């Protein structure tokens, strides 16, 4: 769920950009170090970003009939690590704003924080935790991808609630409302994304 262009007040838009920027810089530095040892990684991440964009523009066969948008960052985090996914996620989100009017330029900072920072880190953490528990790969991948997706959507709801606290009840009521209304679309998407990621990883392992 991308926050649309112009939806956040200036202070919030700039604030979230300021929060995301250090992560982006850190991600770039981490890739840059990696590139010295593996120069071919540059092409790889570029092509991977294109693939992630493609997946995000995909209309998945979904039970609710809504066109669901998986983010692919869960998969990316598992393959390239969460640090690399910040710049890659940034590129994907920028392209979604510029090519599909999905999200926006003023809200890019907020969307990057929820989708390219929180999502990948949560996915990666869940993957590690579930792997440590010794559950099967499919379960680990499913949980990582879908919980990463849910974390993204909860973060977005927090961002919206912070910007627009309810007149009565303030932040918590507002959060409850946003989280509730977007759950209708986001929960099926999270499940779809989890399923698809499992299918993709299973297919990849076989090649």
């Amino acid at each position, binding site marked *: 769920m991308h926050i649309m262009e112009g939806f956040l007040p200036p202070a919030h838009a700039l604030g979230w950009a300021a929060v995301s920027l250090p992560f982006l810089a850190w991600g770039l530095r981490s890739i840059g170090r990696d590139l010295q040892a593996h120069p071919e990684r540059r092409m790889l991440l570029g*092509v991977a970003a294109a693939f992630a964009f493609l997946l995000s523009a995909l209309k998945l066969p979904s039970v609710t009939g809504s066109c669901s948008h998986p983010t692919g960052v869960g998969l990316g985090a598992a393959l390239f690590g969460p640090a690399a996914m910040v710049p890659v996620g940034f590129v994907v989100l920028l392209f979604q704003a510029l090519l599909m009017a999905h999200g926006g330029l003023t809200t890019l900072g907020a969307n990057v924080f929820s989708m390219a920072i929180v999502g990948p880190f949560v996915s990666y953490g869940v993957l590690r935790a579930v792997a440590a528990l010794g559950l099967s790969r499919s379960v680990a991948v499913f949980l990582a991808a879908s919980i990463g997706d849910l974390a993204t959507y909860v973060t977005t709801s927090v961002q919206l609630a912070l910007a627009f606290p309810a007149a009565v009840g303030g932040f918590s009521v507002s959060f409850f409302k946003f989280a509730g209304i977007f759950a209708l679309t986001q929960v099926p998407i999270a499940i779809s994304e989890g399923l698809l990621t499992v299918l993709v990883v299973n297919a*990849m392992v076989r090649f």
Partner: protein
Amino acid sequence: MLIESSAYASRWRDVAPSAKALFALAGFIAAWLAHSPVAFAALTAVLVLAALLGARVQLRSYIAVALPPLGFLLLSCLTMLVGPDANGHWNFTTAMLPTVEHLALRSFAMLAAMLGLVLTTPMPDLLNLLRRLRTPELLLDLMVLCYRMLFVMQQAWDESITAQSARLGYRNLRQAWRSTGLLAGQMAVQVWQRAAALQMAADARAYQGTLRFLPTAYPQARRQQAWAALAGALMLAIALGDRL
């Protein structure tokens, strides 16, 4: 992609991207400054008409592109208008109405500013602008590769879907899921092969470690920037006039 094809077809395609970006930036700032519905209406009108009449973006494309974000806007605004009243009963409440009104008008105007830019400026020109604005080289390289490979992979994806359909891969939901999973897995594996092929092709052309391209020259850039600054100043004046 509709935005993409509109941008290449737009009459402002060869206007300096810096001028178009300046105009959009002024639109963003003005929309953040504006207060009254009249000012928002005026700003939105300037931005929309510039795209439709100035750059000759087709009205149908414009509406089609604007609909999904407007759907988000509608849903979010309705959400904000529902809430508990003082007695804890959930109801339509007018308490948030001023906020919602301002929010919707601002979102309209800013969406118009962004659409004015992206519907007239193809991505390669925008990337050129980002290069001139000293975006980190690594980030630019990712964007350049992402943009080009997007179309290559999109075509591969579409062709594969067609081939799977010919073998009944989308007969029902279960098969559709299976087919999509197989295809996405195969395409994920291709990511590595395509990257290796591009690396080799780059090396064959004496690749030195970063993807360098010659930016397009815009001989009329100064004049166009001046016009954009003028139009931008007009919008800022509308917004500021509101505050005085």
